[in-house]
C-alpha cells in the first residue's frame, strides 16, 4: 500500500514537472535568450510573486504585444508567441514550477 502511494506521488510529480519541461523549457532551449531572463523581466515590471504569476497567465492565455514584457527589437525579431493550449490548471502548475526554479526571493545572500 505504502509503495503504491509512493509511486503514485512520484508519477504525479513527474507529470507536473514535465508540463513546464515539455511545454515551456523545451522550446525555449532553442532560443538565444535563456528562459530565466523572461521571469526577471516580469519581476522587474510586476515585483511580487502574485502579480508576476497573474501577468504570466494573462500573457500565455492571450499573448499580445501590449502584454509582453520584452523590448520592441526582441518582438520584432522573434514575434509574439502562439496562444498556449494548456488548461488553466496545467498553466498554473507550469508557472509555479517556473517561479520555484528561478525566483529571486529567498535566494539572495
Amino acid at each position, binding site marked *: 500500500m505504502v509503495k503504491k502511494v509512493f509511486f503514485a506521488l512520484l508519477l504525479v510529480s513527474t507529470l507536473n514537472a514535465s508540463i513546464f519541461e515539455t511545454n515551456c523549457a523545451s522550446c525555449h532551449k532553442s532560443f538565444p535568450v*535563456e528562459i*530565466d531572463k523572461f521571469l*526577471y523581466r516580469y*519581476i*522587474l*515590471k*510586476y*515585483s*511580487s*510573486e*502574485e*502579480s508576476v504569476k497573474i501577468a504570466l497567465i494573462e500573457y500565455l492565455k492571450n499573448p499580445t504585444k501590449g502584454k509582453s514584457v520584452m523590448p520592441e527589437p526582441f518582438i520584432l525579431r522573434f514575434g509574439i508567441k502562439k496562444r498556449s493550449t494548456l488548461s488553466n490548471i496545467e498553466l498554473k502548475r507550469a508557472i509555479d514550477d517556473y517561479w520555484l526554479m528561478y525566483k*529571486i*526571493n529567498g*535566494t*539572495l*545572500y
Partner: protein
Amino acid sequence: MSHSEKQTLKNFVSLYALLSFSILLLISILYFDFERDFMLRKKQVLLEEYAKELIQNLKYVHINLDKTRKYPRSKNYKSAIFDSSKKLIFSTLENKKVNLEDKLYKTENIIHFIKQPSSYYLGSYYVVVEIVDDELWLNMVYKKLFIYAGSLFFIFLIIGYFLSRLFLRPMRDAIEMLEHFIQDTTHELNTPISTINMNIEMLDSKILDEKSKIKIDRIKIASQTLSHLYDDLSFLLLNHKVISNDEELNLKKLIEQRLNYFEQIANVKKVSLNFICNTEQSIIIDKKKITKLLDNLISNAIKYNKISGNVTVILDEKSISIKDSGQGIKKRNLKAVFDRFERFNYAQGGFGIGLHIVNVIAKEYRLNIDIESKENIGTKVSIRW
C-alpha cells in the same frame, strides 16, 4: 492677608499656573516637532543619495543574477527591499519593524527612509534605507527648551505677580476702606459711651421708681454691648501697639467676674450661665487680653444661643471650655471663623471680629483653640495651654 484674599489668590495662581503650563507645553511640543521635522528633512537629502546608490547596486545584481545573488551592502547605511505585496525580499536592517506607509520617520534612534524605485530590481517595490541618528539635535533642542521655556515661565511669573496685584486691588481697597471707617467710628464712639456709662453709674437707684429702674437696666445693657464692641474695635486697631503686661491670674475668679458681667445680657435672652470649676488654676497672662478673649467667647455663646438656652464654662487643669446650646457652625465655615470680618450669621449684629481677636490673643500666648460644632445642637470652644 485674609482668608478670602488667600482663597482668591490661590484660585488665581492655580488657574494662571495651569494656563501658563499648558501654553508652554503646547509651544514646546510644536517646537520639538518642528526641530525633528527639520532634522529629518536635512537627513532626507543624504538618505535620497543612499537610496539612489542602493537602487543602482540592486540594478547591477538584477542584471547579473546568473553571476551573483549577493545583496548589496554599505557601511554607511542598512537596507531592505519589499515586493509590491509588502513581502520582505531581503533585509540587513537593525530595526526590523518597518512602516511602508510613511516615507520618512524616526523610531527611537533609527531613521527609516522609504523609496519606490521606477523599476523593481530584484522585485523591490519598496526600498528601505536605515541610518542611526546621533541625536545631537535632540540635546540641543532640550537645552533650548529648558532655557526658553524657563525664561518664558519666569516672565509669566512676573506678569502673574502684577496681574494678581491688579486682581486683589479692589478687594484690598474695600478692606482698607472698612478699616478706616471702623477706625473713625471707634474714635467717635469713645466719648459718648464713656459719658453714658459714667452717668448710669452716678444714678442713685434708691430714688428711682420700678419702671425707671427697668429702663435704666436696659440702657445699661445696651451701653455694655456698645462698650464691649468699642473694646473689641480698639483692640483690633491698637493690638500691635499695646505692650502686654503679664501677671499671675486666678482664672476661677476672673471667669466668675466675667459671667457676672454678662448676666444682664444673658437674662434678656433667658440664657442661663453655668460655671463648672474643676481646678484653682492660675496662669501668667495679660489681664486685659485674657478678659477680652473670655468676653468674646462668652458674648458669642450668648449672642448665637437660642432663647432659654444655656452657656457652660468649664475650667480644667489645662483648658477652658465655653459650651453653648446655640445654632452651631456649618462644617465648611469652621476654617474661616477666625478670619477678620468673616460672618456666617447676619441675623445677629457684629463685625465678625470677635473670634479673630480670640485667635490673635491665643497665638500671642501659644494657646490652642479647638472648635467642635454641630448644627442646631451647639458649639464648644476650648482654649488649651
